[in-house]
């Protein structure tokens, strides 16, 4: 994947020390993580627990302060080794400003494949790194789902014991939440947002790199829970159960804290980029609808993630320093955790969904060969979803004992969300209306997105209504509901977007016939799995149980069999992706979907600083009636610069 650029070469012959360090960033990062963990663990468990006599009770596996401080310092050590502190510390020590050459190097210029394994400030490299990382999360999380379904073949414990089962449930759910919160924002917003708004870079490129490089430590820290006894709380981490848990709980807390940090920082970076870095002529009114969805999502992330970080910090203090925030006997309240968590948790599900809405609406016109119908109202819908998502979180707590007088409001606000989401359907229908729709593979995934999300939305109505929620709350109906929205919605949009954007991101494409087979396989098995689970939930099966009533077994077995097919067809997608793109390297057409978006007008591979010629004369990216591309390109400019932002 060499960069083809018309610009003059930037690299000088002799690499500087900073560059050499950066080349080995990943290795240094891992060394830093190990050193950080050992130092933190020694400080936490030795100095705090024993020397000062405080801290949590040490067990054979260690102590909570040691583990938590070890995790925190290993994350810090990892980022330090990766080179995130080189610039600020270097400047503090009086180093010169980095030259344009240094910045171009940091941006991945001439880096070949190696730039994907070090810290770079190129949003395109970061997008690809995100894509690989979330696919890895999806794969590991999916394996967890297969184990869970295998266990649920029988109504009594069979292949797992209670502790390992609950740890699996917790790992599957938490890892999938990590995946879902970055599935669209990570790869596609990072890769395409700057191109779509005509800028050479993000507002805070180093910060952007950090939002990605927080993911590997977060994932590894979460997975390391298996060495510390696991955790039994699922992804919701309810206290005081979390206070009871063994050391494995600390992995969940620190992993989630890092993900929260990543979501919040990514949001701030994207807001700043969209607000300040748009090319001249790229007015808000001309902004692609995907960029609008990223803007809404970024506000959600920047405003909601702090609540999560606060909550997990409080829980960390509870587990280490006797702060009893959530323990009633100590004057705390379990409701505090529930509220902080869901105040983050509900906007979080729209952090998953809003970029999926945006991406689907971005792709749709290319297949309908028509402009996006009702663009303004569609954008208004996403903004409406974003605003409403902050006032609905109590619907997770309808049976928790909240004051009955509060319930009608949250029922009302929750049901209101179907108005802005309904608008997304109106926009889709309007766009496809009287169109000559091309049923290319991404279009099939878009269709599945709307089909699945429709079921997800309608099951949500039953959960928003308090009397029916009394029956359905915390049952498999809820589980099926959010799998319909997040997997059926977001992950199907993700798969469609991968097929759609791979030709631009890698210059390669996937075999259409195999993909069509894969699409129908994944669509049918997905629906088979979760329709079974909707039924089993209505019949009273509770979530997260290893044992269930015997009469529920047939439906559970049907869900499991479909789930195996689902797992296989998801693996097939990954297999096709790896085979075609990495091994066979099937070359893609330059603009296979004949899209008018500006991201399809720049060369493939995209130049290091995006534009050899600057886009001018912007218009809407979907003028399929006139065939006018989103932007014209001005005269060639040197591919330098972008450095003014670093």
């Amino acid at each position: 994947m060499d960069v083809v650029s018309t610009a003059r070469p930037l690299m000088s012959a002799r690499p500087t020390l900073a560059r050499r360090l950066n080349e080995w960033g990943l290795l240094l990062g891992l060394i830093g993580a190990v050193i950080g963990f050992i130092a933190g663990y020694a400080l936490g468990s030795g100095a705090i627990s024993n020397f000062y006599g405080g801290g949590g009770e040490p067990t054979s596996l260690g102590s909570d302060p040691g583990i938590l401080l070890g995790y925190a310092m290993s994350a810090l050590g990892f980022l330090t080794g990766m080179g995130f502190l080189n610039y600020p510390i270097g400047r503090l020590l009086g180093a010169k400003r980095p030259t344009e050459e240094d910045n171009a190097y940091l941006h991945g210029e001439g880096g070949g494949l190696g730039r994907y394994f070090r810290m770079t400030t190129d949003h395109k490299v970061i997008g690809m790194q995100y894509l690989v990382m979330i696919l890895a999360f999806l794969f590991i999380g999916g394996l967890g789902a297969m184990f869970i379904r295998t266990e649920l073949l029988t109504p009594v414990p069979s292949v797992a014991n209670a502790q390992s089962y609950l740890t699996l449930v917790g790992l599957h759910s938490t890892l999938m939440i990590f995946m879902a919160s970055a599935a669209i924002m990570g790869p596609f917003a990072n890769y395409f947002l700057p191109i779509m708004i005509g800028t050479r870079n993000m507002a805070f490129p180093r910060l952007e790199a950090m939002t990605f490089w927080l993911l590997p430590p977060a994932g590894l820290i979460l997975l390391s829970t298996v060495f510390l006894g696991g955790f039994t709380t699922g992804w919701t981490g309810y206290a005081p159960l979390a206070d009871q848990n063994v050391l494995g709980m600390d992995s969940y807390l620190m992993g989630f804290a890092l993900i929260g940090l990543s979501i919040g920082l990514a949001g701030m970076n994207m807001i700043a980029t969209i607000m300040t870095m748009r090319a001249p002529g790229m007015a808000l009114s001309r902004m692609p609808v995907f960029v609008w969805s990223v803007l809404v999502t970024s506000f959600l992330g920047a405003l909601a993630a702090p609540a999560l970080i606060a909550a997990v910090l409080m829980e960390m203090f509870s587990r280490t320093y006797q702060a009893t925030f959530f323990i009633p006997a100590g004057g705390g309240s379990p409701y505090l955790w529930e509220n902080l968590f869901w105040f983050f948790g509900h906007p979080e599900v729209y952090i998953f969904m809003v970029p999926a809405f945006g991406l689907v609406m971005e792709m749709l016109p290319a297949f309908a060969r028509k402009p996006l119908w009702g663009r303004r109202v569609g954008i208004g819908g996403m903004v409406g979803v974003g605003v409403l998502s902050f006032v609905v979180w109590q619907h997770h707590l309808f049976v928790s004992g909240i004051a009955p007088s509060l319930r009608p409001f949250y029922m009302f606000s929750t049901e209101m969300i179907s108005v802005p989401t309904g608008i997304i359907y109106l926009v889709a229908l309007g766009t496809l209306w009287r169109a000559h729709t091309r049923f290319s593979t991404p279009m099939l995934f878009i269709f599945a997105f709307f089909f699945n999300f429709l079921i997800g939305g309608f099951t949500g109505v039953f959960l928003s209504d308090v009397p029916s929620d009394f029956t359905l709350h915390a049952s498999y109906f809820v589980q099926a509901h959010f799998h319909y929205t997040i997997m059926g919605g977001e992950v199907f949009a993700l798969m469609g977007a991968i097929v759609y954007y791979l030709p631009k991101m890698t210059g390669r494409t996937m075999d259409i016939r195999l993909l069509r087979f894969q699409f129908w396989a994944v669509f049918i098995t997905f629906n088979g799995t979760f329709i079974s689970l909707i039924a089993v939930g209505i019949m009273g099966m509770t979530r997260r149980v290893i044992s269930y009533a015997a009469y529920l077994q047939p439906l559970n077995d049907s869900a499991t069999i479909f789930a195996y097919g689902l797992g296989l067809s998801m693996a097939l997608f990954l297999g096709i992706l790896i085979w075609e793109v990495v091994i066979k390297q099937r070359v893609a057409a330059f603009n296979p979907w004949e899209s008018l978006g500006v991201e399809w007008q720049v060369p493939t591979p995209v130049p290091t600083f995006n534009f050899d010629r600057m886009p001018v004369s912007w218009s809407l990216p979907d003028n399929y009636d006139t065939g006018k591309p989103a932007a014209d390109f001005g005269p060639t400019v040197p591919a330098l610069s972008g450095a003014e932002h670093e």
Partner: protein
Amino acid sequence: MRNRATATRVVLIVWIVAAVGGDVALAFGPIPPGQASDLASSESLTILLLAEAAWPVFSAVLAALFFTLVVNKIAPPTAEVSASALRGNTRVQTVWIVTTLVVVLSIAVYGTVALAIDVPGTGISTTSASLPMPTSTDQPLEVQVIAQQWWFTYRYPAYGGIETAQLVLPVNQKIQFHVTSLDVIHSFNFYALGVKADAVPLNDNVITATPTQVGTYRVQCTELCGLWHGNMADNTAMVVSASDFSAWIQEQTALDAPIMKYLPPYSHTYSGSNLPQPGVYAP
């Protein structure tokens, strides 16, 4: 053009048949959680009405999607499309938004009314044991559900606060469940009665239901509460006739007599201050 008109009519008829047929089928189908209590009936009714309202809309969206993708398309190469089909149409958008708003508002109003009329006093929770309970003309029988890892125990304050491991309720008697927990968050779920209430330590979560059908039922915990959450269930909860209930109470009172002095006094919540200290249980 004539084919399109025919196809449009076919789609419309298929949708009407599906919508009406589905709604009729729903009306005759068994709707969970059933009719074993007034609360369950009201939840059943709500689920039924929501499903009756949702199914035509759901199938309409699917029909519209199918219609748009398959029927209402134009032949290549792209022919002219009217301006309103191109970039948006204010009237269509307004109608759509107003319609969804009206549907949503009516569902919300219905839910609020159902909440106020059908399930009064449900889920009132207090953190103080002394707050007055909702007044009611037909005196409810208070039954306390105490959740702990990983089982439920029940106390009957009307009968001297006796404590039992099995839940037995008299039929056609209004029951006021007082749900609390001794350790972590649990949730008490009597599925057949439509009862679900989180058990939160130092909190008294109240939910009222009148069982109307004698039988043996399952109660279970529906909030992840640790290792054996999946096994925190009991298939022997019973609703019995009034006479059977008195007989059972007498039996339990006799059984409990030797241990009554070790039980903490009845209270809506239990904390370290009113729980016996470790070792006190031992005679």
